């Protein structure tokens, strides 16, 4: 093991990391010490966060390095050894190509900085294209399966808009002002949901308590008739109650 890395640059891809290791060890691109590079490569990907969308590429490079390294330990006559030599050469060629591309990229960026403020009339418009989410159907399926499996993420019932007693009270008072007698079932039919009906019942009881209405039900579970209390009737009720 070669000590530890301090303040590592961020590597976008495995070739970037490989090239950096080769340069850092002062190796020739065409004469890589595969075992040293392999252990450093592994050390790096175990110690540092790999960009999540390139994790597979880093791992496949690690696999390739390990395979070359182990095959190169075999006797030279073996087929595996010959194959590994070829693979190593291919990798070195790729690395050399990548180095040139990086150089050219730097060159372009440099030119770009110098040119940035030369403007011409027909500048192509920058067309903003809505970014497609980086997910496939399979990712979605996987996430969904994970949610079901994970007991922590139990599903919750999606509720509609909340119903407030104040709102229903106001509705009811308005209704009663215009109609002296209203049937509970009629009111409930306006929004036939359990929550609304429960709140409606609370509102009816509330108004009855304030003596603004009186309620009448012939027998249990039958229709409830809600009647507006006239001022006089309210007074009488008040008096009765007082006694």
């Amino acid at each position, binding site marked *: 093991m070669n000590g530890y890395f301090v303040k590592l640059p961020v590597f*976008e*891809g*495995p*070739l*970037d990391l490989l090239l950096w290791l080769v340069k850092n060890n002062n190796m020739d691109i065409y004469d890589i010490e595969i075992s040293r590079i392999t252990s450093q490569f592994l050390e790096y990907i175990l110690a540092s966060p790999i960009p999540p*969308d*390139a994790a597979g*590429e880093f791992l496949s*490079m690690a696999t390739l390095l390990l395979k070359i390294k182990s095959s190169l330990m075999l006797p030279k006559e073996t087929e595996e050894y010959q194959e590994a030599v070829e693979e190593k050469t291919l990798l070195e060629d*790729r690395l*050399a*190509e*990548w180095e*040139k*591309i*990086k*150089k*050219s*990229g*730097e*060159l*372009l*960026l440099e*030119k*770009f900085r*110098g*040119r*940035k*403020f*030369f*403007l*011409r*009339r*027909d*500048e*192509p*418009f*920058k*067309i*903003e*294209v809505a970014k497609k989410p980086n997910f496939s159907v399979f990712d979605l399926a996987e996430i969904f399966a994970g949610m079901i499996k994970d007991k922590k993420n139990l599903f919750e019932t999606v509720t509609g808009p909340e119903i407030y007693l104040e709102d229903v009270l106001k509705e009811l008072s308005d209704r009663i002002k215009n109609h002296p007698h209203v049937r509970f079932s009629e009111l409930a039919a306006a929004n036939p949901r359990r929550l609304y009906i429960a709140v409606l019942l609370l509102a009816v009881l509330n108004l009855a308590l304030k003596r603004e209405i009186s309620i009448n039900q012939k027998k249990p579970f039958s229709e409830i008739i809600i009647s507006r209390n006239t001022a006089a009737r309210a007074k009488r009720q008040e008096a009765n109650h007082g006694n």
Partner: protein
Amino acid sequence: METEELKKHIEAILFISGKTVKKRKLAELTGASEKQIAEAAECLQNEWNSNHGIILEEIGGGWQFSTKPEYADYVLKLYPWKGNLKLSKSAAEVLSIILYKQPVTKAEINAIRGIDSQGPIATLLKNSLIKTSGRKNVPGKPRLFRVSENFYHIFGIKDETDIPSWDEMEEE
């Protein structure tokens, strides 16, 4: 056509085009030879580049009028989007691959970089630095990419000879 007359023709064409007009196209439009075009353009360059807010530039195998960098602030006040282009390192690398390997498919770009290049390719397409140019005749018929006309303008490249060759990249 006299050089003086030819200069005015070229000037008018370049003004109205607003982007690079290739030497070959100028010759075709004016009926002059490419050599005459080059001479006239050089005269125009001398006249324009000294005393004006705009210059005549040799770009991408032709000529174009550009505003001088000294006046970019004012131009950008009028057209803020003209200064919008930002180039990331990965975009510049993908662009380099396309420049040297064109026409090239996304899969070929990915193979060289060792990682997926969808993001940088989308950015380059959006900013017209590359263009699609037909499809490769392999299964899936993938799109082929090339650098665009705008590429030469953005990087101020005169023509193909102004780009270091693939072998030269190694020597540096």
